[in-house]
């Protein structure tokens, strides 16, 4: 390794302790199940569908506000 920058980056490298994975798994064992495991796939799909539905509703509501405004502007500019 001749490049001093590569050498610097290699010098800074740390290594995990031999028992690191075991320590992490022991810590995980003391936790509850991960959040995703508490939600069955169908619940997740239903939640995603509800999010899309809410987004669609917001878009419709926004258009319902915007279109009358545009129509009003168009009427006003053509009134004369």
């Amino acid at each position, binding site marked *: 390794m001749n490049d001093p920058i590569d050498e610097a980056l290699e010098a*800074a490298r740390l290594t995990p302790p031999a028992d690191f994975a075991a320590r992490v798994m022991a810590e995980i064992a003391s936790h509850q199940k991960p959040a995703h495991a508490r939600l069955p796939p169908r619940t997740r799909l239903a939640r995603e569908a509800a999010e899309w539905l809410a987004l669609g509703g917001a878009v419709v509501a926004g258009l319902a506000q915007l279109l009358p405004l545009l129509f009003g502007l168009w009427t006003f500019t053509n009134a004369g």
Partner: protein
Amino acid sequence: MEIPKVVERVLAGDRQAFAEVVTSYQAPLFGYLGRMGLPQARAEEIAQETFLRAWTRLADFDSRRGSFSTWLYTIAHRLALNEIGRSATRLELAMTADYEAACDAPAPADSLVAEQRRQQLRAALLQLPARDRAAVALAYIEDLALAEVARIEGCTVGAIKTRLHRARRRLAALLEDNRE
């Protein structure tokens, strides 16, 4: 290791499958944290916290949006930047690095010279601005492409290339200064 399958196994309740994730990613993660200038003890804490968060938030991982490694390193990157961002810690990092060097230095002269050189190199790396150092540290993770580094950093590939160029130039200058 096929991460999507391992993730599926974890989702199905196979907790031990997550050990494969930890084993696969621990070495590159520690490499990255070291290049960010963190001492061993801090790196261990952050690496552990990274895997714990990945475990608890696995539901948020969506393979359609990006690779698992990008997702995992994003968690680690934010934790590392938070750690480095604390001004008191920055001083502590430098002091700890020096302390560790003094304690770890072996007696034989050759090893001592090598260790001193190693410390000079680390010190030079620590003098880089955190953002530039982050770009370098991420770019040296083997399985991350520049586009993924840019995604983790939340910027363009061009910006990452600029940071890398600037960091390498600054690092070269610092190393040159040390040599004189």
